């Protein structure tokens, strides 16, 4: 009995844990000021930012009236983002396109970099490189930005009258309406974090069990969900902004 439990313990502690190579909660820390930051997230975020800025700068360096291939692609992306913003926000979507576009592109490229780039080739002293959205700090930051954005949108559009939406349609709903302001960033951040982390975990676990072929369908699934999650995050952010800007009549 003792032996069995001991072996199970060993299996769980060393075997399974290390087979999967899953290092949830292990981070490569940097000390900046009084803060411990997750360096692997910063590094991959920088890479993602570099990809985005570099490709955009490279492509629109010499804009043409009749778009060349790269410019055509970027304009197509921009059109897509504008379309999403317009659908969700409505008439005054113009000033919010940069914000929604930044959210969408950053999350999308982060997710796809996690699913497509061989991050694990580069080895860190501790922890491992993965998609920035794999870390809850990133997604919470993005979700809080969204909260700030929709508060700003509502307040700048309607002034203090914005808060009258908390007692509509009846004052009884006041607690629920206030609760909504907390659940919105919570659900946004946890949805994105959970999906990406789950995708990567599934892939990593499958790779550690069967290294070849078998993970490929799951990786495609991961690509698909990654794209969907980026779209969902951007759409919901736009929807929240639009909701706080629309008039309750």
């Amino acid at each position, binding site marked *: 009995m003792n032996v069995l439990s001991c*072996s199970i313990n*060993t*299996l769980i502690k*060393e*075997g*399974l844990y*290390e*087979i*999967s*190579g899953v*290092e949830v909660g*292990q981070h490569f820390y940097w000390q900046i000021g009084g803060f411990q930051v997750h360096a692997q997230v910063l590094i991959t975020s920088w890479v993602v930012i570099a990809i985005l800025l570099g490709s955009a700068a490279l492509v629109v360096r010499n804009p043409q*009236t*009749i*778009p060349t*291939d790269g410019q*055509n*692609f970027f*304009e*197509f992306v921009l059109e897509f983002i504008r379309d999403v913003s317009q659908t969700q926000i409505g008439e005054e979507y113009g000033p919010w396109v940069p914000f929604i576009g930044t959210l969408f592109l950053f999350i999308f490229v982060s997710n796809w970099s996690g*699913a*497509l*780039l*061989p991050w*694990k*080739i*580069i*080895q*860190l*002293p*501790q922890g491992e490189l993965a998609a920035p959205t794999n870390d809850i700090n990133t997604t919470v930051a993005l979700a809080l930005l969204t909260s700030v954005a929709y508060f700003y949108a509502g307040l700048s559009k309607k002034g203090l009258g914005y808060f009258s939406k908390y007692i509509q349609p009846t004052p009884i709903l006041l607690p629920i309406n206030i609760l909504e302001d907390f659940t919105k960033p919570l659900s946004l951040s946890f949805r994105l974090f959970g999906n990406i982390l789950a995708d990567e975990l599934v*892939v990593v676990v499958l*790779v*550690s069990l069967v*290294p*070849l*072929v078998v*993970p*490929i369908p799951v*990786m*495609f699934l991961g*690509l698909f969900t990654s794209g969907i999650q980026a779209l969902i995050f951007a759409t919901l952010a736009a929807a929240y902004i639009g909701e706080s800007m629309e008039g309750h009549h």
Partner: protein
Amino acid sequence: MKNLTDSFVYLGHWPSAGSFGFNTDILATNPINLSVVFGVLVFFGKGVLNDLLDNRKQRILNTIRNSEELREGAIQQLENARARLRKVETEADQFRVNGYSEIEREKLNLIDSTYRTLKQLENYKNETILFEQQRTINQVRERVFQQALQGAIGTLNSCLSNELHLRTINANIGMFGTMKEITD
């Protein structure tokens, strides 16, 4: 059991401590699957994306062509409108010049005719004055004549007496006698 776990440990061994470096474990880093996924993505995604982008480009080209055609049409219309404006302006100038000369002529005519009418009126006036003068003269003459006649009648009536009669008759007889003598 120990062996098994050892092998597991070996299989999943992850050098977690240390510094930056490259993980050369080809199975753990998963580059094969990633390249397959990437290849499939490029292979299928490229066609779809190319179609999409080609469509977009074609649409942009069509839009540009359409707007250029519209622009050319608009320029044509502008030219036409300008030509018509020029034509109308010259016509207006002509009309204005014609109108001025017409007005001048009308003025001259009017002055002329007024002058003539004035002259005629002057003539009438003169004639009337002359006529009036004539009539007044006649009247004065008539009155003077009448007064003279009346004076003569008065004189005659006052001076008529037998002596005068006789004298006159005698004078006349003497006159006739001399006249007879002369004729004889």
